[in-house]
């Protein structure tokens, strides 16, 4: 058996949250080992739609998401890398009166909380920003400072920045056992043994399995949100586009390709690292895209795929200290909207490790928030 590798912190999971945590910790002089069962950015962090979205965030996430957004705008400089980030307005389209009512209510709620970054658009304003939108779309809401990035590049940008500060990444090492011995965490992987004072669970769609090893139960499920990308087409949309109530989401990149998401889920075969697409359901996403933007009818689909993602019943992440184990922290199950939060989650985790607290209210994200509820 190999010698035990020791560090201050062990991070389980080489996705954007794990890589960002490693970066923030290493930057503060903390020694970090990252354990990744496949390769860095292999799953949701590498294959998601790349939306950097503040618009429409759950109230509990708005403060963190705003902070993350500011970081995104300087992230390439901070990490000395190309994350592919482009600042683009994000517009959610209202398709009918009911959508407009939803937006009015949301505005009232947000203004009441002192958030003013979501601005409603009337039909004409919508058309000015999206000239190719279908006639039946009646309005929308915009967040000006949103955008998109290239997920694979972004996650690797964090990885490389973390490495420059001394963090070490161990790929192809699946965690097999976690034990608490004295004041240390002892972790055995498929390739080695590790010991550290602090343990971070950033295991994404496998976060529930790591939680159980740490000693926390969690009602996480996992699924395979589906995406597709078209061949290049003439430029027709600058903003990133979503819809108030329909499962539609797309962005046109500078090279003309259009990435279409919308949340339809395929089939997740987590044990085998595989996903299968549900073609009838993804067809529905194609239909929505054409309904809102008839110009997309003739777009050619180049590739369809899905990635494995962890979900909580309330679609909010698990984030914070373990309530039952010392010096263990969770950040997983971001329920398909964790990518944008990446730059701030690393900071939150680094704060928890080095100071024991966070400046954000993490109560809504407690791992045991369902303990007394019957699901």
């Amino acid at each position, binding site marked *: 058996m190999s010698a035990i590798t020791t560090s201050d912190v062990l991070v389980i999971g080489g996705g954007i949250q794990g890589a960002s945590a490693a970066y923030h910790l290493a930057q503060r002089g903390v020694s970090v080992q990252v354990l990744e069962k496949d390769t860095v950015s292999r799953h949701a962090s590498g294959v998601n739609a790349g939306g950097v979205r503040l618009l429409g965030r759950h109230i509990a996430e708005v403060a963190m998401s705003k902070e993350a957004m500011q970081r995104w705008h300087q992230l390439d400089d901070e990490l000395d890398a190309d994350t592919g980030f482009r600042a683009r307005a994000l517009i959610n389209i209202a398709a009918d009166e009911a959508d407009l009512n939803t937006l009015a209510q949301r505005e009232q709620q947000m203004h009441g909380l002192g958030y003013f970054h979501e601005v409603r658009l009337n039909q004409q304003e919508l058309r000015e920003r999206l000239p190719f939108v279908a006639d039946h779309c009646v309005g929308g809401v915009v967040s000006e400072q949103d955008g998109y990035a290239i997920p694979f590049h972004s996650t690797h940008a964090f990885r490389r920045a973390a490495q420059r500060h001394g963090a070490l990444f161990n790929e192809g090492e699946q965690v097999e056992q976690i034990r608490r011995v004295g004041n240390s965490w002892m972790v055995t992987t498929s390739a080695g043994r590790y010991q550290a004072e602090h343990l971070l669970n950033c295991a994404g769609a496998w976060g529930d399995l790591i939680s159980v090893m740490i000693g926390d139960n969690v009602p996480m499920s996992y699924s395979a949100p589906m995406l597709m990308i078209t061949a290049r087409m003439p430029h027709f949309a600058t903003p990133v586009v979503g819809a108030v109530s329909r499962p539609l989401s797309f962005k046109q990149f500078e090279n003309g390709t259009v990435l279409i998401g919308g949340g339809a889920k395929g089939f997740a075969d987590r044990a085998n690292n595989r996903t299968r697409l549900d073609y009838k359901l993804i067809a529905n996403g194609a239909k929505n895209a054409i309904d809102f933007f008839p110009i997309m009818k003739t*777009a050619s689909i180049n590739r369809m795929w899905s990635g494995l993602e962890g979900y909580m019943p309330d679609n909010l992440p698990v984030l914070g200290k373990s309530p039952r184990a010392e010096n263990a922290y969770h950040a997983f199950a971001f329920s398909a909207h964790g990518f944008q939060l990446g730059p701030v989650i690393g900071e939150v985790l680094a704060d928890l490790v080095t100071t024991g607290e966070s400046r954000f209210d993490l109560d809504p994200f407690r791992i045991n928030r369902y303990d007394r509820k019957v699901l």
Partner: protein
Amino acid sequence: MNDLNAMCSEQGFKNSFDIAVIGAGPAGMSAAITATEAGARVIVLDDKPRSGGQIYRNVDASPLKQPEQLGEDYLKGAELTAAFSRCGAEYLSGVNVWHVGDNGEILLSENGETTRLTARQIIIANGAMERPFPIPGWHLPGVMSAGSAQVMLKSDGLVQDDAIFAGTGPLLYLIVAQYIRLGVRVRALVDTTPKANYFDAMAEIAGAFSAPEMLLKGLGLINEIRRAGVTVYKHAHDLAVIGEDKMQGLRFTSGGNTQEVQADHLFLHQGVIPNLNITRALGVEHSWCEQQLCWKPKLNQWGQSSLEHIAVAGDASGIVGADGARLMGRITALKQLQLLSLKSVAECQSDAAADLQKLQKMQRFRKFIDRLYRPIDLHRIPEDDTTVVCRCEERTLADLKQGFELGGRLPDQLKGQTRCGMGPCQGRMCGHTVSELLARWRGDRVADVGYYRLRSPMRLLTLQELSLFSDLTPSNNPQTEVKS
């Protein structure tokens, strides 16, 4: 017929078959003939308007006045296409299969509409494609593959005067010979077969003598080209296309000298490799074949893949040639008939025995051919930084080197870093090059490097067509919303 078969034939299951065969070339046609004879309900799906595959393309409807000029090996396909059209298999021509699932689901596109069908057994017989030939300038207009020259010839009777043919392998000599017989002027044949291959191939000469008629056929073609007065440059290497916006000539080294031949058209060819996109997207296991320098699905002698109900026959399984493909089609069909309980184990084995033996003999000859026409490293693994590796996204060797430096150690990682392989061909044209480049840079075996993770659709599909493939109403459930 057993009960299951009866169930599948009932009304309401009209889109369900015992066996679905993808591809109507020699392997697919002979599989369909064998399977229907034994009573299986078979459907054959093919993207071309007529059966025959690449090799027998238009054999029963040639646009040429004298199709016999294309040679006996071509003409003999007519007998097979005729038997196929009589066999009673359902046959959909001109359809694009864009998804094959490991659950037996097949999605195909016909006249802009997608249909779904299921089959208990699937035979993938979608043939081969030409090996990429990544030399400087191969992406320029005017440069095509020798295979496309043959497609034009067989489909439309179109030819190109004064073109250069460059590369190695039987198909290259065949198309040059066909051009000569049709009276088309050929500027030059630049043969890249290295001298060393002739010596190396001698080790497999016993295999060559197992099929002397094929050996003679090959020699005959080369003599025919020489006699016709075509300039032949031998043992050429360091090929580079001359030209800025379009091809103007070819530069290469032959006989110790740098040569330049001017021409507006160049047909490149250095052998064929299995068409991987369906088997890869399906997720069956593949292995790297050192003999043929290509990825192949892992198969048993019956053509069965790592998924029992998915078999692969013909060149899609590894290059076996038209005659080998025909045998394999029969063999895989016999095994599937046994799995469908339409033949006993004993019947299956006795029916296949002679074919299995013949196939083995052919494979010995194949070893010789593969050795003789093994393309040189420099023409497979580019060394010039300006060489375009990914033609869709125009990524050069220099771009890939940079991606490797940034951590792109696996094909998918390199793709993520550089976009190499992300274009409309989904890596068809760069996959092998990338596997071999990474193996060299890492100092590993190609088998350890692997290949791209492929996904459907295997053909470009319009959003409109996909949108119509739906019997669901839009969901208004915000719980399913994902916007990251």
